[in-house]
């Protein structure tokens, strides 16, 4: 099975084992392909389209995180078309989502010279923060729908299947089945989803309370009163 394929990345010949994605091949060759939704331990889905590259002969830009390297493929990872697409994509994301706590995306906005005001008509989605459990809060105004949390909750890691999708189109949002509060779902509070979230849409409760201006003592008091309540 272990046959090698040779492809050309930005004019450079690269040999990789068959089945390697273009993204892996590029990184092996030391070329930087930006990604947002990609996570090394999650199934790649090609959602954010930041990793698109131009493959000679293909009508469309191809997501490097999914497309496997093929023999003789000619790939441009930084052509003007690719760069323009990436810039518009981060601009679109910035117009729809609060990216203030997403350092990686912020860096990309800067790198690609994005115009943060390009889509002034845009209405950012502003769903309220969901604070329904003692462990973490969900602020979907910051969610870019990278799917990492859904995937680690499902068969990429935890096999808990507590997270899913609601709505469609612009209103698509990660949620629980029938919008049940977290403690009533299959969630085991493993924290995997919080760990992989790239934009701080999922945040530990303590961090969130601190940001809300509460002191550590107040937070301790909260947990104590909760414990007491539960004992009663």
């Amino acid at each position, binding site marked *: 099975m272990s046959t090698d394929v040779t492809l050309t990345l930005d004019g450079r010949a690269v040999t990789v084992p068959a089945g390697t994605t273009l993204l892996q091949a590029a990184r092996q060759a030391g070329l930087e392909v930006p990604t947002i939704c990609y996570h090394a331990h999650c199934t790649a889905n090609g959602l*954010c389209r930041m990793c698109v590259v131009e493959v000679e002969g293909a009508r*469309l830009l191809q997501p490097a995180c999914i497309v496997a390297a093929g023999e003789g493929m000619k790939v441009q990872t930084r052509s003007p078309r690719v760069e323009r697409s990436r810039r518009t994509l981060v601009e*679109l994301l910035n*117009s729809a989502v609060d990216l203030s706590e997403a350092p990686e995306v912020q860096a990309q906005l800067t790198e690609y010279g994005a115009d943060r005001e390009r889509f002034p008509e845009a*209405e950012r989605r502003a769903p309220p923060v969901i604070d329904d459990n003692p462990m973490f809060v969900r602020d979907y105004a910051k969610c870019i729908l990278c799917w990492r949390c859904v995937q680690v909750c499902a068969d990429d890691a935890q096999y808990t299947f507590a997270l899913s999708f609601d*709505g469609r*189109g612009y209103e698509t949002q990660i949620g629980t089945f029938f919008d049940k509060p977290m403690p009533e779902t299959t969630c085991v509070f493993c924290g995997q989803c919080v760990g992989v979230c790239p934009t701080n849409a999922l945040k530990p409760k303590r961090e969130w309370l601190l940001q809300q201006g509460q002191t550590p003592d107040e937070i301790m008091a909260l947990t104590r009163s909760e414990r007491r309540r539960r004992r009663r």
Partner: protein
Amino acid sequence: MQPSDLQTITHKEQTQRQKHRARLLCCGSTACLSSGAAETRDTLARTVKLHQLGHEVQVMTTGCLGLCSRGPLVKLQEPGQPEVTYAGVTADVARRIVEEQLIPDLGPSPEAADAGPHDLPHLRASVHKARAARSLHGHVLPAEHPFFARQLKVVLALNGQIDPERLEDYIAHGGYGALARALTTMTPDGVVEAITLSGLRGRGGAGFPTGVKWKSVRGAPGNRKYVIANGDEGDPGAYMDRTMMEDLPHQVLEGMALAAYAVGAQSGYVYVRGEYPLAVKRLEKSIRAAYRQGLLGRQIFGTDFSFDVDIRIGAGAFVCGEETALMASVEGRRGMPRMRPPYPAQSGLWGRPTLINNVETFANIAPILNRGPEWYAGIGTEKSKGTKIFALAGKLTNTGLIEVPMGLTLREIVFDIGGGIPNGRRFKAVQTGGPSGGCIPAEHLDVPVDYDSLRALGAIMGSGGMIIMDEDSSMPDVARFFMEFCADESCGKCVPCRVGTTQMHRLLQKIVAGQGGPADLAKLERLGDLVRRSSLCALGQSAPNPVLSTLKYFRHEYDALVASGAAAKEPA
């Protein structure tokens, strides 16, 4: 069932039919039912019964007769006489058709009395009939009516001849004959070869050669394969697939069985849009009937071939017409597309090789095998063979369902068959392919309708919806409508489609409201290009088409709106 049993049924049906001297066929598809066909049919049956004609006049339901805007439609068939089609048959007209056309003798009529000694009963009857025909004249659609005369019925040939719900009727018209022949005399490769020879291309919109697809599924490794009929028709104004499933369910099932035999599949699904309850009902009934007769299930026609079919009902998401989203939906997951490759032919339903075709494609299979691939390849243009069903809608005199050979020009479709634009208005554009298609202006009306010519114009054939617009329609507004549709139907998976279509819709709203500037137009074009090139599935990739094609052909309308917007912004 054995192949010879088909003849037995055919013979029995024909004997039965000869007992009647006339047949009244009442359209029973959704369009006519919505204009009162159920009542029409009841009245026909009641009046026939009232005049004790039950043993000589047969009243039955049939499939769509085409001219849906003039429904309910009723067809009268008498042996030895040309068929007569009546339009706008309300209960009252239905009663008069029976009483004035089918009652042989209502006593002496004034004309007949004048005839004096030469008065013969049949003369009297015919004179009476001629007079009555005058009273129904406004309802008669002449056979040479261009709407009918220019059509070529291959796939819809049995529409208006058979009762969709009766398997015996379909068999009596040659139904399941192709399956019997294929199973007993042809190899699976032979069937694939025949379909390849016919030049049939997928009727779902993209026009992928059907033979090539079948061959790749046949060649895919694996002993468990699936066949799916895509009946998740979602384009606004299009109802070809609905008609196929409602009116010729057995033809679709036969096509699926033939496909399953050809590619080596054992089970299949018909994926029906949730908004088509009548199609679901008739498919269910047809599948049950076919199982009862041994035309589905185990060891069909006594051969080793077994094939099971089940129905899956969609929940109303447009994107589920995309094949990978459709398969996710069949599997019980959220209907969202995934990247291809792997194509369904390699890894489809539950990771197995899957053949997925539009229901109209499947309906083409039996006619091709019945009349031969060479005959089929003789119809149409060089690269697009056969006929195509279109649903005509919008500002047109005759709206309805038509089947025409590929290569007819748009002008022939709009002005000859469609009867032109009503109320003396001028033609402006025809929108083909729904939200994924484009608007074609008057200067391209002489383009032959086939997959490649339409694509060259920035539109697509699509599943076959055609919306005709007159001079009153504002093209930016049309583009805004389709963009809203796409933004609403986006599954929300990839960024360009989820956010990009929404932004395009906002920009269009602004432009249509007269508040946009030239910069907004440029932004719209750039954004359209991005969404088209970097979206994950065909929905996003084709969503900008209505905008880009109207920008191409009706730029002046956008410019006018932008200019008025700029004027409004000037301080007074």
